[in-house]
């Protein structure tokens, strides 16, 4: 599962992710991160059964971790299956099926939200 971790201004300097890895032994995959000296945000992936443990340990260390149930969602009534999103996505999460219907592999989505603006029909949303 994916977790969105936000670091506060004060804790920004500490190696929180590394510390969580050491304390829990869970191997964290950082998929996307924007971290500077004052604050930061990281999208991490961990095994499904260890999401809560990681989240709680993060919180204890002063970061805020939220389990994300969904990546990008496609509004089927707005989508016209054009495929404008396909070449925009850095993770190739969108594809066409045999019938040229748009398919989304949510597991590949790293919530970068590039596709949200690129969709001419405003059919893609990212609820964070």
């Amino acid at each position: 599962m994916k977790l969105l971790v936000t670091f506060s201004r004060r804790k920004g300097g500490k190696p929180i992710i590394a510390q969580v890895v050491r304390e829990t032994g869970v191997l964290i995959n950082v998929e996307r991160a924007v971290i500077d000296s004052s604050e930061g945000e990281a999208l991490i992936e961990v095994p499904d059964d260890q999401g809560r443990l990681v989240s709680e340990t993060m919180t204890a260390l002063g970061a805020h971790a939220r389990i994300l149930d969904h990546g990008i969602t496609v509004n089927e009534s707005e989508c016209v299956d054009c495929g404008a999103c396909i070449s925009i996505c850095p993770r190739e999460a969108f594809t066409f099926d045999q019938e040229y219907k748009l398919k989304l592999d949510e597991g590949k989505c790293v919530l970068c939200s590039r596709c949200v603006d690129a969709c001419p029909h405003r059919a893609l949303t990212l609820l964070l």
Partner: protein
Amino acid sequence: MHKSIDQINQRIREGSARVVTAEEMPSIVAELGERGAFQEVDVVTTGTFGAMCSSGAFINFGHADPPIRMERIWLNDVEAYGGLAAVDTYIGAIQQSETREEEYGGAHVIEDLVAGKSVELRANSRGTDCYPRRTISTELLLENLNQAIMCNPRNAYQRYNAATNTSDRALHTYMGTLLPGSGNVTYSGAGLLNPLSNDPSLRLIGSGVPIFLCGSQGMVVGEGTQHSPAGGFGTLMVTGDLKKMPSDYLRAATMSGYGVTLYVGLGVPLPVLDIDVVRATAVRDEDISVDVLDYSVPGRARPSLRKVNYAELRSGSIEINGEEIRTSSLSSFRRARKVAEELKGWVEEGKFELALPTQRIDPRKAAKPMHQTAAGPRVLDIMDRKVVSIGEEEEIRAAARKLLKGGTNHLPVVNGSGTLVGIVTTFDVSKAVANPGKAHLVRDIMKKKVITTTPDEAVDIAVRKLEQHNISALPVVDAQNRVIAILTAMNLGKLFGGRRLK
């Protein structure tokens, strides 16, 4: 061998016409041969579903009491044309809302009307003896309008050039988002299903021909604007009744950073009169080629990086200079298929008869570029020729003195042979002075990546560079990259107040 249009319509009425889509036709011809296909097939249906900016609708509101001659007209804050008679207007698809900008426009007004939503009309007038009223504001449904006639000046492009972007920043165009460094390729068009690609000699598609337009029966008016079939870019002007359209094949959209557009579903049924029609409708995606144009060039003549056909574009990626680049369609092939399938159903059920053009469209025409009697201002008209530059080996203190003396904030940096190698600004020099460190020479603090212009460049292009890079000056260089002038935001003032030189 020949079938008349009457014979074909007779079969349609009897329910015995054999109708196929243009996607099915190539394999039928491959299997049965041209003669066999001619005997087998009576009608080939085509379809396309994509962004067609040159679309809109004529509306008649009926008269108010007291009556008004509307001069300026808004529908949901989107301005509509006020230059027609008292209560007529034309709402264009790409006109943007004055309050919601690119998130809502004429296309959305049309979509909302078709979806049965109410739309607010606002209009004003100076008042006349016969039309004393000066303002009006009312909520309208599609059923309240006397006429709502879709009339699209340019639809159903025969094919469209694909787009990419070799620059180092993302571009937001009518061809969608183009990632930097040729990060993607976008294209539009239904390829083998496209109406005009199945009748390139325009024998069957012409004025008066009944078509599928946004889910109801419409008609071809004649050639579309910018119709250019000589190069393979024919277009159609089409019309249909908004009141009869379902909402499935008419969709408003926004190309981010570009604006509003309307997705239109359009299909033309083609009667199989003879072997020539069989040949034309056997066209495959592989047979339809377009150029991949580089949209990073802001001029009319965008360079082509390669030729590509629709089969390659639809495969998901194409190769450019040895690299695999992913492709995105902006039009929907799935919906184009649905248009052709639905039209096929209508003809099979005897609900839709065919007709030949009452007037043919010229298949040899080529669109011309704009005739410009006055060239727009160029950089050389307003650039500052008294440019002060500095050598890369000079000390930072020397740069500070030059900045003070020259009354400028920008110093182009040149090397020993006089070519541009960098730029320093007042900010760079102040920073070096405020935080003294290892930097002593101009070379140590200059920005090496310099955005430049040339004397012949259009001022509008130079202004885009200033905006995009958030800078306030561009060194003007010659072919040898020698600094000959500078263009600053201050120089742009010369464009106003009639003080333009030359």
